[in-house]
C-alpha cells in the first residue's frame, strides 16, 4: 500500500513536471530578436520593457472553439492567433513579410520552389521540440486534407486549380513547390503551424482508429486548456463562458527583446466578455481595460477624460482601416423569379450604376456620420494596401492620381440618367422607365447600424434631388445577408473586410466567386468586363514582381471601379484606438496591430 502511494506520487510529480514547462535554460541560438528601440528599424519608436502584470481587454463574443484550422470567426482566431505562429509573419509596423518559424527562405529562379529553413532549438509550449514534421503535418495532413474543413485551403489553390506540394528535406528544412508561379505563395505559407504530437491523434489519415472528420471537432471548448499547445506568445489557461478567457505566457516563446529578455512581457493576457461595445467603453473609462478599439462617436467622450485618466486616444483621419464599404447593385434582381424586368435591365446598365456613384455625397457622409474621421473610398483594394490604385507605384505614396473618382455631382448623375432614358415622363417630379412606370428602388442596410442607416438616408436624399426615388428600408442583419445570397435585394449597403493582398478578394470579384453576390449569374455567363477582371486577377498572382503585379492590379481596380461598378464604394473609417499610457509600446498601434487586438501583445508592457 505504502509502495503504491509512493509510485503514484512519483507519477504525479513527473506529470507535474511535464505540465509546468519551465522554458529555455538559455536563449535559443535561432531566437527571433525584436529590435525594440533600435534606430533604423521598424521598432525605433518602441522601447524594451519589463516583464510582469496582467493585460486586460474585452470582446463581445465568446470563442467558438480553440481549433484555428477550422475556425471561421475572429471570436476564435483572436485567441488562436496568439497561441500559434506561421512560417512567416507580417511586421506589425511595416506590414512587410518577415521570417517567423522559418528563419529564412530561398526562392528558385523559376519562382516555383521555395525552400524554408526553420529555426532550430525551438519548443512548443509543452516543451516538445518544433521540427519540419509539424510543418508537413499542418499543410499536408490538415490544410490540404479534404477531410478537414478549413478556409485556408482556398488561399492555397493555384491558378491551375492545383495545390502547392510541401515536402520535408530534413528536420529543419521544408520545400514548397508550385506547378505555376503564384505570387501570394509566401502569404499563403504564413498559415499557422499546428503541433503534430498533440493533434495527429485526431486525424483519420494518420490515425485510422478515429472516424473521418474527427479533427474538425478537436480542440473544442470542452478541451482541457492544459491540452492546448502552441508556439505563440500566449496559451489559453482558462475559459469561463460570458466572463473571460485567460491566457498565460508561453514559457517557450522564442521572441526576445534586444536585452535578451524573453517575450511576451505580460504574465497574463485576459479578455473579458462583455454585453456590448458600450460596456467595453465604460469599462475602459473605469480603468478596468488597458486598451480598446473605439469608434468615431466614442472620441469626444474619451478626449474629455484622456488627460485626467492618463490614456491616449489615437485618432488619425488620414489612416483608414482595411476593408470596404459599398452599395451593392443586384444585377440579377428577379432573374430566378422572372420578375423585376425593368429594374434588372436598369441595374445591368453601366451608366445607371455610374449615376449612382455620382450620387454618393462622400464628404457629407464623412462630416455628418464620421465626425471627419473617414476617407472617400474608390477601390475594392484597401487604401493601405501597397497595391492600392491611388498610389503612384507599388507601396508608393497615395496621390489618387490614377484612382477612378466619381465626384459627387447631381448634374452628372442626372445627365447619365437622361442619357439612358430614365426621365420624368408624367411631370410628377420622379423619373420613370420607358414604359411610364416610376423608377422606385428599395435601399436596404442592417437595422441598428446607425452609420449605415445614415449613409442610406444621405444617398436617398441626394437621389430625390434629381427625381430618382430610393426607398430606404432597414432590415435585420441576417435577413439582409439572406437577401444578398438569394439575390432578392435591390440596393444594399454593407461592407467587406480587407487586407494588403488584392488576391484575397478573389472570392468576391471573380465572376464565379462565392461572394460575387451582385451578379451570381456571371458564373455561367460573365460579361466582357467580368472576363477581363478574372484574367487580371489570375495575372496578378502569376508574377513574382510586385511592380508588375501593381500595374496589373491597378488595371483591375480601374476596370472594377469604372466599368464594372457592381459595387459603388462609399467611405472608409479612420483608425481610432485608445490605450492607457502605462501600456508601453501602445504608441505603435495601427490598423494592423494593437495591444488588445493582437500584433503588439508580445511587445507591450506595463511601465
Amino acid at each position: 500500500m505504502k509502495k503504491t502511494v509512493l509510485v503514484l506520487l512519483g507519477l504525479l510529480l513527473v506529470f507535474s513536471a511535464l505540465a509546468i514547462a519551465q522554458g529555455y535554460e538559455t536563449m535559443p541560438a535561432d531566437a527571433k530578436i525584436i529590435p525594440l528601440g533600435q534606430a533604423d528599424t521598424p521598432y525605433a519608436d518602441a522601447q524594451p520593457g519589463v516583464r510582469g502584470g496582467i493585460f486586460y481587454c474585452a470582446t463581445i463574443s465568446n470563442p467558438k472553439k480553440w481549433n484555428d484550422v477550422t475556425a471561421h470567426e475572429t471570436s476564435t482566431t483572436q485567441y488562436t492567433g496568439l497561441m500559434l505562429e506561421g512560417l512567416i509573419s507580417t511586421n506589425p509596423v511595416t506590414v512587410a513579410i518577415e521570417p517567423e518559424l522559418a528563419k529564412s527562405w530561398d526562392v528558385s529562379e523559376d519562382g516555383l520552389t521555395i525552400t524554408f529553413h526553420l529555426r532550430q532549438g525551438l519548443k512548443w509550449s509543452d516543451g516538445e521540440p518544433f521540427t519540419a514534421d509539424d510543418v508537413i503535418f499542418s499543410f499536408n495532413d490538415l490544410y490540404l486534407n479534404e477531410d478537414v474543413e478549413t478556409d485556408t485551403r482556398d488561399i492555397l489553390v493555384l491558378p491551375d486549380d492545383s495545390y502547392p506540394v510541401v515536402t520535408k528535406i530534413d528536420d529543419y528544412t521544408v520545400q514548397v513547390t508550385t506547378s505555376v508561379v503564384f505570387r501570394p505563395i509566401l502569404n499563403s505559407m504564413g498559415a499557422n503551424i499546428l503541433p503534430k504530437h498533440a493533434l495527429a491523434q485526431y486525424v483519420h489519415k494518420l490515425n485510422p482508429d478515429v472516424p473521418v472528420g474527427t479533427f474538425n471537432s478537436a480542440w473544442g471548448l470542452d478541451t482541457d486548456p492544459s491540452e492546448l499547445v502552441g508556439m505563440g506568445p500566449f496559451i489559453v489557461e482558462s475559459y469561463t463562458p460570458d466572463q473571460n478567457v485567460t491566457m498565460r505566457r508561453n514559457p517557450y516563446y522564442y521572441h526576445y527583446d534586444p536585452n535578451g529578455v524573453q517575450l511576451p512581457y505580460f504574465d497574463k493576457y485576459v479578455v473579458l466578455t462583455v454585453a456590448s461595445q458600450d460596456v467595453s467603453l465604460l469599462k475602459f473609462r473605469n480603468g478596468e481595460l488597458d486598451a480598446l478599439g473605439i469608434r468615431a462617436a466614442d472620441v469626444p467622450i474619451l478626449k474629455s477624460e484622456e488627460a485626467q485618466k492618463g490614456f491616449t486616444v489615437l485618432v488619425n483621419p488620414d489612416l483608414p482601416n482595411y476593408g470596404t464599404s459599398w452599395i451593392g447593385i443586384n444585377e440579377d434582381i428577379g432573374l430566378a423569379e422572372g420578375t423585376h424586368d425593368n429594374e434588372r435591365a436598369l441595374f445591368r446598365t453601366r451608366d445607371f450604376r455610374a449615376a449612382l456613384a455620382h450620387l454618393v455625397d462622400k464628404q457629407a457622409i464623412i462630416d455628418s456620420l464620421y465626425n471627419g474621421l473617414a476617407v472617400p473610398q474608390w477601390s475594392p483594394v484597401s487604401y493601405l494596401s501597397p497595391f492600392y490604385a491611388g498610389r503612384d507605384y507599388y507601396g508608393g505614396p497615395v496621390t489618387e492620381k490614377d484612382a477612378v473618382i466619381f465626384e459627387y455631382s447631381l448634374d452628372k448623375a442626372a445627365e447619365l440618367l437622361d442619357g439612358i432614358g430614365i426621365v420624368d415622363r408624367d411631370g410628377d417630379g420622379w423619373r420613370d422607365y420607358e414604359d411610364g412606370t416610376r423608377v422606385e428602388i428599395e435601399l436596404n442596410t442592417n437595422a441598428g447600424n446607425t452609420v449605415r442607416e445614415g449613409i442610406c438616408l444621405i444617398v436617398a436624399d441626394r437621389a430625390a434631388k434629381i427625381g430618382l426615388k430610393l426607398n430606404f428600408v432597414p432590415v435585420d442583419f441576417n435577413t439582409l445577408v439572406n437577401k444578398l445570397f438569394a439575390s432578392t435585394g435591390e440596393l444594399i449597403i454593407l461592407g467587406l473586410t480587407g487586407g494588403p493582398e488584392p488576391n484575397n478578394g478573389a472570392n468576391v470579384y471573380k465572376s464565379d466567386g462565392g461572394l460575387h453576390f451582385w451578379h451570381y449569374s456571371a458564373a455561367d455567363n460573365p460579361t466582357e468586363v467580368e472576363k477581363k477582371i478574372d484574367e487580371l486577377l489570375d495575372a496578378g498572382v502569376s508574377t513574382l514582381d510586385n511592380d508588375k503585379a501593381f500595374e496589373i492590379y491597378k488595371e483591375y481596380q480601374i476596370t472594377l471601379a469604372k466599368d464594372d461598378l457592381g459595387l459603388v464604394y462609399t467611405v472608409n473609417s479612420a483608425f481610432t484606438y485608445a490605450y492607457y499610457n502605462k501600456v508601453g509600446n501602445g504608441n505603435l498601434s495601427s490598423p494592423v496591430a494593437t495591444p488588445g487586438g493582437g500584433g503588439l501583445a508580445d511587445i507591450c508592457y506595463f511601465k
Partner: protein
Amino acid sequence: MKLTGLRALVVVMSSIALLSVIGLGANLESIASNELVPEISAAAGMALADSYAATMTEAELEALAVDGRTIGLRTAASGALAILYRDKTEDEIMAILKGDADPMIRAAAIEPAQVYLVSVTSDDEDFKLTDYLKDIAINGETHEMRLAAAKAYYFMSRKSLKAADLEEQAVTNDSDELAYAAGEALSGFYLSFNPKTQAELEDLAINGSSEGLRVAGEIALSSLLIKSDLTALDFETTLLSIAGTKSAEYRGAYKIALANRYAQ
C-alpha cells in the same frame, strides 16, 4: 469681517499651510488632511483614492466618506469606494444610489452604475433605453441617481448628438443633472472635433451662462492644463490666488489638473 478680508485671510492661512506642508515634504495624506483651500485638499484626496482602495476596507471608507475631517479625506474615501463598488451587483449599486446614505457614498456609486444603466433591457416592444434613462434623470429618487442616469443618457446618445445640440442642452434641459451631463459630453467636442483655445475655455468655465456650459469649460480646460508644462506648485499657486473667486468650475479645472500632478 468683510468677505474680501475673509478671502485674504484664507489665502494667507492657506499659503502658510501649503508652504508648511511643501516645506516638510509632506505626503498627500497631510495635504488632504490639513490644507485649507478646499480644491487643493480635494485634489490630494482624488490622488489618494487608488491607495485607499487598496489598503482600506469598505466599512472604513464609508465611515471616512461621511465623517472625514476635510473635503480631501472625504473625497479620497468616496473615490476609493467608487473603485470597490465596481464589484457590487446591480441591485446593490442601485440601492446605494436610491437610498438615504450620505451623498458622498451615493456619489461613489455613480460611475459603477453606468455599466448597469446602459445594459437595461425590456420585453416591452416600445421600450427605448434613452427614454428610460431620461425619465430617471428627471424623476430619480436622489440627485446621484438622476446624475447617474443623465450621464448614461448622454453616453447612449453620443452617436446622434453634435456639439451644437449639446451646447443647447447644457443650457436648457429638463433637469439640472441632464444639463450637467450634457456639459460633460460637450467638453469632449471642445477637445476634438470643435476645438476651443485655452482662453475660450477659461472664459467659458468662468462666465458660461449655465452650469452645464461652465462644466464643459472646466473639463476641457483641465485637460489642457494637465497637458501643459505647469507643475503642481504652479497649480497650487493659482488655486491659492483664486480661492473663493472666479467660479467653482474654473477652480475645479485647476483642482483636476493638480490631482493629476499629485498622482504622478
